[in-house]
């Protein structure tokens, strides 16, 4: 039994990749460490459970990576995808550290495998976790436990005592073994963003947020983030922005994970509840465009849309969790989707009439396009005319939010007055906005978590022992 009345060297709040890397880093540096995970044991680890890979720089191919991915190339990618909204010093620091993380994380029991089937485009840049994110987490937890890190589940924190940027203690919602106030010499906040907090999302999105589906854990409510920002911590990142993709409308409200996604947009057309198209489905190759569709659908009435295609393309994309809805005619399909049959027939007829002949190739920006149609479909446009007609209903699926706490290179929290906190650190999604002002590329969230988690743990241990 853990004695929670003792004062720990390092308290880690959160239980995902960043939290565990911090806990292990601090423990290996000699500190006594307590991890408070707000979720029950099965749901431990926040969104890490749903991840599958990490993007790390490396100068040469490895057993599982097909070629080099230099620091410069990583930096170029980051600069491009964030449109420059990144802290260059922190970002370059992270990229440099990521090289070592590739090996360090293996020393913590995590195992790599080559990129999964259907993800060839990531084979050079991203290392995949054998068994996925939960397997990765399980390995980190086993290592942390072996090292003597104390871990408590169902341990929701409702308040933080902070004086002049100095963490004193955390208050538990329910006392555990008689302790309700947890004291520690240093704090690592690694409790994620607020994407599962619909009320908070509504502050920026209004009632539309009621129709959002949350792809990850229902426990990412941002309560620790909010407490820190309310107690003088400097914020970073656009509070109104979140990473959103179009996922199946039949997915559960929370925790549907990666399997509710759809990769079929480029093979058909996308219509809203009035059966009208609203964006160029063939603008660019799918890995570069999937992340805009969440926001596009969020902007449509009732936040619903339908990917419409025909029987000729059903095997062109990954098999889906939910089967497509089918109709022998467009009118029958429209009926099943709750669309006006005539409107859908017109939209498809207009689209088919605008399709120009070309040579279809989904791996390149091919010459199959529409002419005289608004909005156009600029690539991979082929007539939808072979029944059965098929559809996937989609809604915005929120992955994560960008608002976070400002940190420095020690992963140390920076206060509103610009001074570094005496003993508070942050790692993972809660501070991702420092590096990732907007945009996303596969595996960067995990890089941020592991790199800044390890740094935060090490620095917190150093801090506590001084």
């Amino acid at each position: 039994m853990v004695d929670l009345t003792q004062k720990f060297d390092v308290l880690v709040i959160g239980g995902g990749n960043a939290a565990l890397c911090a806990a292990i880093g601090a423990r290996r540096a000699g500190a006594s460490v307590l991890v408070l995970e707000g979720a029950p044991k099965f749901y431990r680890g926040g969104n890490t459970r749903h991840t599958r890979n990490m993007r790390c720089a490396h100068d040469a191919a490895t057993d599982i990576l097909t070629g080099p991915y230099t620091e410069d190339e990583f930096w170029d990618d980051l600069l491009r995808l964030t449109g420059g909204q990144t802290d260059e010093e922190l970002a370059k620091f992270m990229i440099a550290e990521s090289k070592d993380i590739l090996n360090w994380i293996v020393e913590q029991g995590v195992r790599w495998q080559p990129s999964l089937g259907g993800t060839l485009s990531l084979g050079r840049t991203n290392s995949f976790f054998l068994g996925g994110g939960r397997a990765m987490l399980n390995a980190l937890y086993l290592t942390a436990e072996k090292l003597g890190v104390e871990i408590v589940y169902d341990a929701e924190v409702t308040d933080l005592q902070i004086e002049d940027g100095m963490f004193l203690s955390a208050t538990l919602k329910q006392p555990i073994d008689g302790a309700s106030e947890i004291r520690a010499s240093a704090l690592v906040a690694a409790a994620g963003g607020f994407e599962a907090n619909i009320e908070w999302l509504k502050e920026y999105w209004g009632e539309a947020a009621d129709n959002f589906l949350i792809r990850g854990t229902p426990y990412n409510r941002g309560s620790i983030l909010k407490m820190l920002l309310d107690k003088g911590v400097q914020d970073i990142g656009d509070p109104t922005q979140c990473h959103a993709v179009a996922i199946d409308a039949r997915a559960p409200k929370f925790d549907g994970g990666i399997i509710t996604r759809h990769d079929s947009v480029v093979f058909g057309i996308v219509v809203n509840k009035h059966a009208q198209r609203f964006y160029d489905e063939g603008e660019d190759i799918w890995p570069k465009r999937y992340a805009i569709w969440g926001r596009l659908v969020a902007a449509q009435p009732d936040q619903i849309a339908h990917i419409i295609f025909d029987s000729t393309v059903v095997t062109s994309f990954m098999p889906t969790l939910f089967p497509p809805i089918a109709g022998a005619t467009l009118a029958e399909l429209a009926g099943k989707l709750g669309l006006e049959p005539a409107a859908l027939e017109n939209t498809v007829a207009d689209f088919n009439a605008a399709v120009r002949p070309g040579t279809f190739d989904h791996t390149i920006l091919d010459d199959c396009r529409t002419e005289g149609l608004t909005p156009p479909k600029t690539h991979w446009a082929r007539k939808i005319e072979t029944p059965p007609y098929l559809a996937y209903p989609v809604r915005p699926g929120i992955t994560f939010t960008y608002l976070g706490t400002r940190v420095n290179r020690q992963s140390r929290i920076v206060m509103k007055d610009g001074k570094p906190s005496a003993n508070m650190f942050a790692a993972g999604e809660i501070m991702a906005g420092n590096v990732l002002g907007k945009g996303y590329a596969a595996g960067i969230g995990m890089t941020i978590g592991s790199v800044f988690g390890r740094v935060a743990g090490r620095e917190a241990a150093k801090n506590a022992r001084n």
Partner: protein
Amino acid sequence: MHGTRILDEADRLMTVCNSCRYCEGLCAVFPAMEMRRAFSDGDLNYLANLCHSCGACYTDCQFSPPHEFNVNVPRTLAVARAESYAAYAWPRAFSGAFARNGLVISLVAALSVAAFIFGFAALHDRQVLLGVHTGPGAFYKLMPHNAMAALFGAAFLYAIVALVMGVRAFWRDIGEPVGMRTDMAALLQAIRDAGELRYLDGGGVGCFNEDDRPTDRRRLYHHLTFYGFALCFASTCVATLYHYLLAREAPYAWWDLPVVLGTLGGIGLLIGPIGLLAERWKRDPVLVDEARYGMDVAFIVMLFLTSLTGMALLMLRETAAMGPLLALHLGVVFSLFVTMPYGKFVHGIYRFAALVRYAMERRAMAQGTAE
């Protein structure tokens, strides 16, 4: 819709897993799944028999219970696998009774045969049964060699025929043509994969048993059991050759090949089954098909008893206990043989066939990519 409810559930799970694929590095089941978009009964039976039940995909799955997607691949495939054994069994009528009362049937069969031999010998000549016999041919005082060979040859032959019929049914069900040309490379690959239990390692760390800490104990005990069995079988074969080719009669001296092989095998076959039973006892109930507990246990217990009676016979063969022990040992071995086609033993046969099929598919895929 499939033929059975468990296949419906297996289909649902494979649809979930095929849209995720995080587990593809753990074993052969998921790469085989990825080669398909839809699953026939035969496909699901193939995947079920390919699964070694290491449990890694359950522990690693973000959608396992209590998640609402309720993904439990090891248990679902275990149930589907057991049902497939029943479906392929020949004659089919024997499988159901055995699945329910495996241990009782095995023991009753063993004791009946032992009693029969015992009684037969006792009627014949009490002195023979309880006397002390040593030297070549000692065993055959109890039962003439030819009678023994005929009885066990028949039991063995029956087991072989029934197993071949079962494999034929399996091979047909999973959609492979019977009598196709042998793919030697695939066969060798499958022998390697089965021989080292490649897919009972949780993707490298060991399999999951009582909790989320991987160990390699089940693999170790299975190796002891399997190779113990193989050595005992080899011992019997060598002894048969000695008898017919060299006219050397059992019992043999402790240093002679049949005894050395049998002793080494016997030791494996004592430790292995005890270990497997202990692991089975500890195993997280969420991972197993509880309804087939009897069938699983029957086979393990019978292997253990085969070795126990055989070792006892070796130790006490120069005393008056030899006669009764020989009768008991022969009874157990006889029962082991005739129940083989209906019990857990078949898991090895169907899994091996599934591994051959997997190796063939992998090779076909690799060739397809190269072209």
